[in-house]
């Protein structure tokens, strides 16, 4: 790397000390650990997506810093040997395999203990790479999935490891940063090397917040915060091509469990069907804040269109927060989180996708971009959805929908006559 531009100022010995201490800690935090999610040995796609991104980041990292830090996958479960090999084919340098009958299903209490044990284990780290094992304390970076299991697991593991966590990340960059922060650096400029920039879209989908996990260099509150960890939105990063020629090591780990850890028991698991079913419909219609002028009447029109196309109905995230007062049961039926399409909801890929009054925030696009043919109806000709659709109908839905429904009905009659 280029020489540091932050030559310590002799008048501020405090900062010099803190910079030194940061360098000393450098060897204690190594590698990128990825916490694998699987459902009874079937990999959840986000696992491969995380591995893909981890591989890309660490390849750049190692080239840039002339180091050999690893992508390390952690897997908990029963009968997971085959799965461990797969993880190597998808980019892991090492897989820490924790095979134990108590780990069959994700249970937060026991999984948190085991993952924290792995994260702190020097023997594990030495098997992953003898090079850095002496001073190893904890991973440098850690990835979890931002779903129903990983969101909670990441929280509890990082509470145990006492470090920082950013949630729902969709872009990652490793950078050397010059930081001046009231608390972290006591207002002084300090250099933080190999810092993970974690980009998080906010709930509106229009703003990107970059979160950093930084050591406190300020002597009054001095503390090391590693790993730098985040949970990653499923469906965002691309997995690598499976490559059976890729090699890596598999490390077995025996966790230390006590009786209390086993006191939480899964009694039963049953597959349930959400009343909202995007997958078996060829058409999906979604609506967003554009319904605002007459929410109830517009939803009625949308339902009519959906009936006409035998489509399932989805919504954008803001709608699930019920921003408009609409009579029950319309609101509970349609304005709920079960129907959200996007990064904080479901991902859909129907043959036809009709977005009505949806502006097209990135979060929403991520949930529908794989759709076959996309039609958008929007009064605002500049809304971002225009770049994500095949036909953009510029107009107010109050005017467009009745005509479109009428046309669909007419044509259906014609088609039926022809049959």
């Amino acid at each position, binding site marked *: 790397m280029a020489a540091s531009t932050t030559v310590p100022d002799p008048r501020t010995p405090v900062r010099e000390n803190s910079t030194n201490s940061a360098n000393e800690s450098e060897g204690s935090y190594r590698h990128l650990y990825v916490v694998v999610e699987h459902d009874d040995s079937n990999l959840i796609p986000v696992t491969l997506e995380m591995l893909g991104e981890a591989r890309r980041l660490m390849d750049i990292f190692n080239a840039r810093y002339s180091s050999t830090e690893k992508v390390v996958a952690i897997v908990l479960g029963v009968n997971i040997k085959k799965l461990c090999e797969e993880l190597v084919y998808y980019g892991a340098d090492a897989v820490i395999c924790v095979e134990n009958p108590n780990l069959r299903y994700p249970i937060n209490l026991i999984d948190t203990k085991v993952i924290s044990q792995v994260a702190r284990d020097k023997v594990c780290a030495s098997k992953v790479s003898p090079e850095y094992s002496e001073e190893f304390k904890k991973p440098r970076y850690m990835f979890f999935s931002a779903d129903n299991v990983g969101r909670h697991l990441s929280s509890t593991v990082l509470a145990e490891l006492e470090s920082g966590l950013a949630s729902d990340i969709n872009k990652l960059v490793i950078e050397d940063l010059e930081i001046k922060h009231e608390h972290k650096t006591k207002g002084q400029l300090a250099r933080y090397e190999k810092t993970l920039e974690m980009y998080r879209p906010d709930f509106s989908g229009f703003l990107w917040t970059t979160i950093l996990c930084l050591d406190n260099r300020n002597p009054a509150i001095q503390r090391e915060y590693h790993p730098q960890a985040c949970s990653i939105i499923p469906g965002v990063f691309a997995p690598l091509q499976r490559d059976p020629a890729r090699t890596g090591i598999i490390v077995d780990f025996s966790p230390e469990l006590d009786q209390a850890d086993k006191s939480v028991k899964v009694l039963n698991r049953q597959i349930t069907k959400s009343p909202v079913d995007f997958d078996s419909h*060829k058409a999906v219609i979604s609506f967003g804040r554009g319904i605002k002028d007459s929410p109830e009447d517009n939803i009625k029109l949308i339902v009519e269109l959906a009936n006409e196309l035998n489509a399932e109905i989805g919504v954008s995230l803001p709608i699930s927060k019920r921003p408009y007062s609409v009579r029950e049961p319309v609101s509970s039926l349609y304005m709920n989180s079960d129907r959200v399409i996007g990064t904080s909801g479901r991902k859909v890929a129907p043959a036809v996708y009709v977005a009505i009054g949806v502006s097209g925030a990135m979060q929403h696009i991520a949930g529908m971009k794989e759709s076959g043919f996309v039609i958008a109806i929007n009064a605002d000709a500049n809304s971002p959805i225009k770049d994500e659709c095949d036909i953009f109908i510029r107009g107010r839905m109050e005017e467009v929908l009745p005509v479109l429904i009428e046309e669909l009905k007419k044509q259906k009659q014609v088609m039926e006559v022809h049959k």
Partner: protein
Amino acid sequence: MEIAELMASPLNLAVIVKLEPDFSEGSVSYNSDGTLNRAETKSILGPHSAIASAAAFYAKVKYGAVISVATMGPPIADSALQQAQLISDADSLHLYSDRIFSGADTLATAEVLKTGIKKMEGTGKMDIVFSGHRASDGETGQTGPQTAWKLGYTFLGNVICYDVDIEKRILTAKRLITLQGTPDVIEEIEAPLPVFITVDPSYRSVFNTVSLRLASVKYQKEAEQRAQNYKNYLKIFNAQQLEVDPKFVGLPGSPTIVYKVERIPKARASRRAEVIDGLDQQQLRRVAEKIHEIVGRVVNQ
């Protein structure tokens, strides 16, 4: 005899809530670029906090539980406590308010909440703590589980219903697990108390006997009276009264910082749209034909 024993040692519950922007019509204000206008938006008890309060009320009706509601926030956050009391018929309200708490990330927030709940434990062992699924503004969903871990309680997320075996001190719950690309699963799980629960948005309390419904009405009435005089139930703690270490709360206790906020750059257009005038019936006819064509084609496959 048994009842007397239960009366002597009812369940002790805590609910952690949050004052959040009100996303409902007339309260929420958006900037012209689609982002939230925080200055113009009103604040209320967060919707998921409301569900957590309802989940605690269930145990009040069913087991006669004693409920404390807590929040960390500025003095005006007491309105969230009042609203939560109206839902849960809480017996006490706790506000953790100190300038040094502000700017906290989830870990530093969890530190304050943990300390607060530990303080409640001084008056009797805590059995269940509830919190919302996630805040509607921050949306990390991390604070609940992190507080649970710091307390050393078993954490159960996405709970859709629960019951307690008071004698055995075991809680059974159903949880909804949704994972990418797999069918949703409802899991039944048991855990010894104390337990920390975050409620799933689909949580609903069911009072399925006459006596439960009557009890529910009775406590609702009590809740209305209490919430009118909520200040009588309110205790406010600053950092010193809570006895938290300033190094572990607020900005100094937060491992993470917000480095920058930017508009998400417009992605390169992934499709090239044909623009149609919404008032042109001819054009809309073509759209309808196109839809029929695609949907029909898929049907035939």
